[in-house]
């Protein structure tokens, strides 16, 4: 079994551990979601639909923001874990973010995050609880796995980063050098390097998360 992965992020207190587990083939999403919605204190986790996560940086950036706001008592949502899910969104609509990025009843790829906000929460207690609660196959939390799980088209739509395929080239004016307006790297169909497109998407998403609706 893949062990729980624990992170410490730069600029957060050194004792704030971040435990992450990634699952595929999850069978009991509806039950998990129920427990979460009922506010069962044993189930205070960030339960994230993995197909809308682009990369480890994408989700850790949300963790950073939520943890920072938690430390300075500025949470907008119920707790730091719901705040992580909220921080993934590009606006201030909490309910919408939770619906969009949070676990749904049809979720099969699930990202679970737990912050050690008190000493009683350790990697051991977390992995024990998860092993009995999540019915699924744990896999490594890394960029390769997330890339396989990611639904890029859905991500683009969520963040309104529609590429050329989405907007179509109708209505796009051409500049003198032949390129189209609105030709950010992520729009350019001419860009063959999907790695670069992915990087640009990530940059755009981090920016939107940072601005959080102030556009």
């Amino acid at each position: 079994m893949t062990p729980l992965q624990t992170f410490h992020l730069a600029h957060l207190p050194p004792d704030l551990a971040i435990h992450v587990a990634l699952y595929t083939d999850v069978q009991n999403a509806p039950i998990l979601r129920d427990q979460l919605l009922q506010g069962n204190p044993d189930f205070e986790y960030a339960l994230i639909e993995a197909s809308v996560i682009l990369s480890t940086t994408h989700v850790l950036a949300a963790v950073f923001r939520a943890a920072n706001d938690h430390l300075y008592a500025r949470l907008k949502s119920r707790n730091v874990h719901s705040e992580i899910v909220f921080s993934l969104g590009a606006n201030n609509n909490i309910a919408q973010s939770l619906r969009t990025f949070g676990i749904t009843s049809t979720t099969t790829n699930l990202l679970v995050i737990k912050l050690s906000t008190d000493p009683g929460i350790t990697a051991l207690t977390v992995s024990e609880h998860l092993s009995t609660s999540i019915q699924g196959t744990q896999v490594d939390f890394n960029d390769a796995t997330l890339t396989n799980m990611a639904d890029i088209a859905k991500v683009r739509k969520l963040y309104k980063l529609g590429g050329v395929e989405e907007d179509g080239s109708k209505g796009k004016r051409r500049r003198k050098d032949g390129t189209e307006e609105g030709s950010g790297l992520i729009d350019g169909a001419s860009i063959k390097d999907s790695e670069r497109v992915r990087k640009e998407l990530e940059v755009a998403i981090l920016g939107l998360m940072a601005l959080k609706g102030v556009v």
Partner: protein
Amino acid sequence: MNHPPDPPQDPLPPPFTHNQPTPTLLTQGAEALLYRTHFLTPSHPCALKYRPSKPYRHPILDKRLTRHRILSEARTLVKCRREGVSVPGVLALDAEGDGASGGWMMMEWIEGRTVREVLIEGAKRRKDDRDEGVGEEWEEGMRLMMGKIGRVVGRMHEVGVCHGDLTTSNMMLRPLDKVQQNGEATNGEHVRRFGEILQGDIVLIDFGLAGQSLQDEDKAVDLYVLERAFGSTHPEAEEGFQEVLRIYGDSYKGAKVVLKRLEEVRMRGRKRSMLG
């Protein structure tokens, strides 16, 4: 801008007190301090721009201004990047700050050197070197670089952003992966390799004074500031600057009108006679 460093006014704001090593101070302006640190993990370097609160201002006004400026700069950067203008990405920010401290923004770290540094060093090396081969390599590299500058500024103006402080210190030359930076070798080779630096990407930085405007006047003033920067700091490259304007003029519809406006701005002169 080179000036004697002032005593560090403010300690780092939270959460940047929680780290070893502490962020490295790069520059200190009137409005903001710039640090180098990392985002999330040590393998992800970033720039941290901190706008401390100003005690002389009424606290409500201070918070309002700090918040507005952080968000405005971030918004401008995000817009530029989204539209294909080469600028640092915004990674995270906190416009409110915590209590009395100001706000901050973390941005993508741009590797490389400023165009200002490269031009100054280039001029120095050419003066020291008598090798003929050097001249052509450098000239060609310069021409291409100027073209890139013209293109990136043109794109920025096209999407309705004016930089507000367009000088060669606010442009980075980011090396292409294969280019080496140290350029240490013998005979003419070292300058040729240094010349390869010119092949890097141009990245515009420091949008602290930037605004969103489609006015020809604002765009012309942007160009004028850059022109004056070239004139005063890089007189040997002044001719190359014409290439910037030429490529700029071809880069978008309406660019030529801005160039015309630039002529007027030149004649008026900026009210200040001191720039760069």
